[in-house]
């Protein structure tokens, strides 16, 4: 594809490449406040381009399929899925963990990189935060659909019940409710707070009255005053500080769903770090899968430069190696424990009836990402896109392996049985992708998809825009 990092720099400040040969500039040359404003803020104000419509219609159709699947589910019950005893958890939980994992990149990029003063987050943070929110929406729906009696889901919440009944706080599922709920709330606030100055920019550029009114309402009267900025920055940093531990805690708590249980293959102390690394891994993969096409369609190459892609690929490489280490250590511990149940679980996982899924996982999550060692691949948007796609599929398969191939043969051989997904399982999975994409397309259409104010900062302080 295009290679903006190859172009000669007009910037006077530093060489275009680091000593290792990576591109270093975050912004393409020649950017001014107005170009930034125009590029980003005009997207919501102008009619959507053709490719947007194509994507949006496909996403809506998928969403429609999701609604059909969910309606039938509510009418008939979870029996329309392939779940059974012993495999009482199926696609819904797999999807849940997958979506929660995807939701990790946003906060990681926004909060942790903000606290670490990494300027290369600027062009992608808005995007990934939105992605986080929508992924949490999809994730949050899954346990609800998973319930045998979804209409009483609120029993998992601690509300003043006339019978003085509380949730059972020893259950990791209750921790999940809190963890995911908190994560969603903080992510929403963080995202919205970052949006406020940009909404004001859109408001100011809007020509139509309804646009002015609408964006004006959500801009909360932002006037770009120094006092506004001072308070905004403090609040933003505070929220970033709050969100940072959440990045680690949410997926740790999700991993407790498994680690607390006594099922061989679940009951493992490595789960929290391994899950968090996996989550960031898949989050970045999903971010790349979305950013790369959007960047192309909206011609944002000068804002989301190769530098971003390169850095994200690096993070995927690191987290991918942690995940691979997790796979290895799981197998090692199964052998080292000498526990017949653990050993059998590992053998069954790799060579049992779902063995092919396990090796597919190894292909997607361990083998293919090794390509990221090559700078050429990291700089090639198309190849990066393909690798990220592998990782996304791989991470879904990983959760399938953990949930299903552990349950299908646990302690009592006389109850061992296979799980086969039904068409409703697949419709729910792809339907939830539809929900995610629909929300994402609406976001792209109606909100500034890159932080205008932060990009303007890069223009104003060009030394920030390059890192050695």
């Amino acid at each position, binding site marked *: 594809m295009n290679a903006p990092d190859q172009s000669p720099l007009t910037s006077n400040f530093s060489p275009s490449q680091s000593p290792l040969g990576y591109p270093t500039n975050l912004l393409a040359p020649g950017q001014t406040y107005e170009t930034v404003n125009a590029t980003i803020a005009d997207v919501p104000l102008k009619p959507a381009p053709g490719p947007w419509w194509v994507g949006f219609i496909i996403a809506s159709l998928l969403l429609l399929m999701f609604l059909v699947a969910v309606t039938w589910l509510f009418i*008939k*019950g*979870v*029996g*329309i899925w*392939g*779940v*059974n*005893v*012993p*495999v*009482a*958890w199926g696609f819904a939980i797999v999807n849940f963990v997958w979506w929660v994992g995807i939701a990790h990149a946003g906060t990681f990029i926004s909060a942790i990189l903000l606290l670490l003063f990494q300027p290369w987050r600027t062009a992608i943070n808005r995007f990934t935060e939105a992605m986080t929110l929508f992924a949490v929406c999809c994730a949050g729906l899954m*346990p609800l659909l*998973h*319930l*045998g*009696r*979804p209409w*009483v*889901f609120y*029993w*998992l919440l601690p509300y003043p019940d006339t019978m003085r*009944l*509380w*949730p*059972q706080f*020893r*259950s*990791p*599922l*209750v921790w999940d*409710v809190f963890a995911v709920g908190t994560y969603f709330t903080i992510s929403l606030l963080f995202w919205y707070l970052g949006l406020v100055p940009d909404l004001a920019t859109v408001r100011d550029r809007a020509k139509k009255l309804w646009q002015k009114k609408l964006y004006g309402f959500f801009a909360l009267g932002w006037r770009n005053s120094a006092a506004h900025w001072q308070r905004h920055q403090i609040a933003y940093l505070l929220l970033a500080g709050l969100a940072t531990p959440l990045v680690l805690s949410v997926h740790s708590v999700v991993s407790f*769903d498994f680690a*607390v*249980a*006594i*099922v061989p293959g679940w009951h493992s102390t490595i789960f929290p770090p391994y899950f968090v690394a996996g989550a960031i891994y898949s989050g970045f993969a999903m971010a790349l899968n979305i950013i790369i096409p959007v960047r192309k369609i909206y011609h944002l190459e000068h804002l989301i430069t190769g530098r971003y892609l390169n850095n994200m690929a690096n993070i995927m490489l690191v987290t991918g190696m942690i995940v691979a280490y997790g796979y290895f250590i799981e197998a090692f511990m199964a052998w080292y424990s000498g526990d*017949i*149940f653990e050993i*059998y679980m590992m053998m069954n996982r790799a060579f049992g009836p779902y063995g092919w899924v396990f090796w597919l996982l190894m292909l997607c999550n361990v083998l293919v990402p090794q390509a990221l060692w090559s700078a050429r691949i990291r700089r090639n948007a198309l190849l990066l896109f393909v690798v990220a796609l592998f990782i996304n599929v791989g991470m879904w398969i990983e959760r399938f392996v953990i949930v299903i191939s552990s*349950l299908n043969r*646990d*302690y*009592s*051989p*006389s*109850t*061992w*049985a296979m799980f*086969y997904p039904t068409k409703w399982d697949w419709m729910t999975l792809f339907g939830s992708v539809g929900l995610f994409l629909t929300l994402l397309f609406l976001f792209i259409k109606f909100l500034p998809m890159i932080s205008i104010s932060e990009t303007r900062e890069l223009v104003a302080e060009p030394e920030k825009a390059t890192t050695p």
Partner: protein
Amino acid sequence: MNHPASNGRARPQGAPDGSASRPYQRETDEFVPGSNEWPDDLSRREFLRLAGATLALAGLNSCTKQPLETIVPYVKQPEIVIPGKPLRFATASQFGGFGQGLLVTAYEGRPTKIEGNPTHPASLGATTVWSQADVLDLYDPDRAQTVTTGGAIKTVSDFWDALNLAIEPLKQNGGAAFRILSEPISSPTLLAQLDRVLQSFPAARWAIWDPLNRDTIAGAEVICDFTKAKVVVAFDSDFLYAHPYALRNARDVANRRRVIEPHGAGMNRFYAAEPTPTITGSNADHRIAVAARDVLPLAQTIAAELGIGVATPRNIENADWIAAVVRDLNASRGESVVIAGETQPPELHALVAQMNAMLGNMGNTVAATPALSLPGSQIAFGDLVEEMQRSAVELLVIFGGNPRYDAPADFNFADAFNKVKLRVHHSVYFNETSRHSHWHVPATHFLESWSDTRAFDGSVSIVQPLIEPMYVGVSAHEILEAVTERSPRSAYEILRSHWSGPEPAPDFEAKWRRALSDGVVTEFQPPSFAGAGQSIAPAPSATPLEKRQRSEARGSQLEILFRPDVSVRDGRYANNGWLQELPRRFSSLTWDNAALISPELAKAAGLNNGDVVELTFRDRKLRAPLWIQPGQAKHSVTLPLGYGREIVGGVGRNVGFNAYALRTSDSLWFADDLTIHKTADRHWLVTTQHHHDVTGRGILHDGTLDEFLADPHYAQKPEELPPLGYTLYDPSEYPYKGYKWGMVVDLNVCIGCHACTIACQAENNIPVVGKQQVGVHREMHWIRVSTFYSGTEENPRITHQPVPCMHCENAPCELVCPVAATAHDNEGLNLQIYNRCVGTRYCSNNCPYKVRRFNFLEYNGRLSPSEKLVKNPDVTVRSRGVMEKCTYCIQRINAARITAELDQRKIRDGEIVPACAQVCPVEAITFGNMNDPRSRLMRLKRSPLNYWMLGELNTQPRTSYLAKLRNVNAELVRSD
């Protein structure tokens, strides 16, 4: 009918308008005829007027309140009925022509649960799976509900008229063209009535047809006392399961095998030789798989070695087994039992009788059964069919059975049947025979009418009804009376007058009442009838088996075996959902039968489970799916009977293949010359257990008696248990002050009959989910019986293990439930609170025993009104999305608690009997209070054989097991 049983008048309270006793029909025609046609003369004004009226009427209609449904209280409160409190009545049922003593629970006149009658010598309080399931048949909406002729609904008096009309002309020549066909009958009253009919029609004849007949034993039927037997040798005999005296046999054998303490421990030694695994064979210490045709030579060899002069065949296999059997038999003369099954030829039975006599068992452990006197004028079934074929039969009355479906294929019964001028069929279900009869008269279920019956050991019971006939039902007594009398009396009058005689004794009433409440007649002799005493052996229904040709070179030929299905028997239970879904022993197949083949044959022919093969036998062909059955004799192919029914209710339709299509009169049980061809088709067979290997896990502990005597605690050693009381919680915080419930399952005596599974289903309102749902592993049984194989695939050791909820002290399910829907109570029960359950299914994942069952769909949603009546009112009917599991029958615990608290005492040991324990023929399940050191339960828990399933997980289950022991012959093991 003034017995209390009929006081309730069988009107369920929920259906005061009697809707429950009306036939259940789907409303096919909702609108009045012609309402959907457009009238020709409709003007605009008329149309608007009609539309307005429609709107108003329909609109107003939806505004009306629901119709008032008044619940009618008893106008006269029956003395003994307390609403909500069940009553139990003794009665009896017929099983293969023999009586089974029962105790039936009824709520306000609605029978819901069948138990064994403890005072009945043939059951001792246990029941078979079939007796358990009988109550479901009672409420089956597919039962025949009206008298029909050619599909048209008639009244009973129409039938009486037609019968009289047909009989009148027959009287002239003594009923020469009048024939009666029945199933085996042991009812004294019915036999007397039959005798009367046959006397008034001297030329009329009577025949018996039972596809599972015991004709090969005819006359040589024996009753064995297994309590005295040290050595038991069974030749293709399923005397623990499919035998009319099986419940008693199982109890007696178990009592000789129960081991609790090493001190004084002793077990009988049990040898079995059989072609296809049976419950009996699976419990043998040494079982060999031999083809059915090789059982006789095997027995002959043993007989010869015992000193009976018979020709010994050459080249006999299993020499070591034979030697061991002979040695053990010789060592325990007078204290052994040799028994052969009804599937073996009469020669074997004669030989077995000789062996028992020779060993001095006759009179000690083996005795002849009391003879049953039958009316004369009996002809063989084959002769009857021949007469029918000659069109010599003008009136044929068939009581029960289904000969058009299950008669031998070579009889061509269908053809012969159509040549009978007037065919009357009397049966509970409208079946294949009914479809081709002129008249079908619905029979009353045994819970609906009066009768009497006689058990295998000769004890007679009165069959008393618990409910008014739900539909138009006529009993066999009434029909037989209608043959001689113009208008028959009721079954009750017939029965009572028969027992009281023309002049009742002054104490008759008291004795009668005692007989009814005991369930066994002890105080008076059953009245005899003229011609009694002529105890003739029943005429063989088929060509004697001796006629079969035996070729010497048949070693590798395939042998065909016909066996009753372990669930639906001869097909009579085909419409019973509980039985269809009950896993078949060993294979755990449900909702299907399959041709069972040996692993060797499968390997040699490249066959797999579910492959459809074409079986060719005597030029008849049949397509059947296969199932590879470890323990099957190498060249034997078993075809379970009772499937492929065509005229049957919704449950039994399209289930399995009809093996009767190949069964001929000279091959009722087995024959040579079967060929099989693989076809390209496959059939979806559905099982509940897919893995039969414990893979070395601490699930099943077994060993030999010698190992146990050498080291009594051997069974508790294999796993490293965590130290007890290893907990983060303070154990003194929640002590069990009152009761502490627990259970022990004695694997050593468990025979694997699955009666517990079905008793639990009946007691706890467990739904039937159907083949498709079992296929995706959603069966709902709260107690499963796992079957494990060990040793070689050709002849594995088979162990059965019933698995209910363990009620763990450290229950893994409890801590993961987010809404506390499963919790511990103060007596240590692991409760499941349906109302609170949201259905996360986490508890099931975390249960290492996988005993939790989930309502994935609304399994109770499609019940007809009558099917709802079978539900136990003390147990919640669970809805969709809710987890459920064994509760230790908490409703029974609470019933006992209420009684005890009213009496201001503690619950006594043995007062609470869970449904599974109550039904168990071998008393393998014991329930009780672990806080009472003197309870039977604690005596078992102190046994060195006591172990926890997967105890190393530190779940500390309340349900523990006694390890399985085998009393192996050390010499036989060495020679292995």
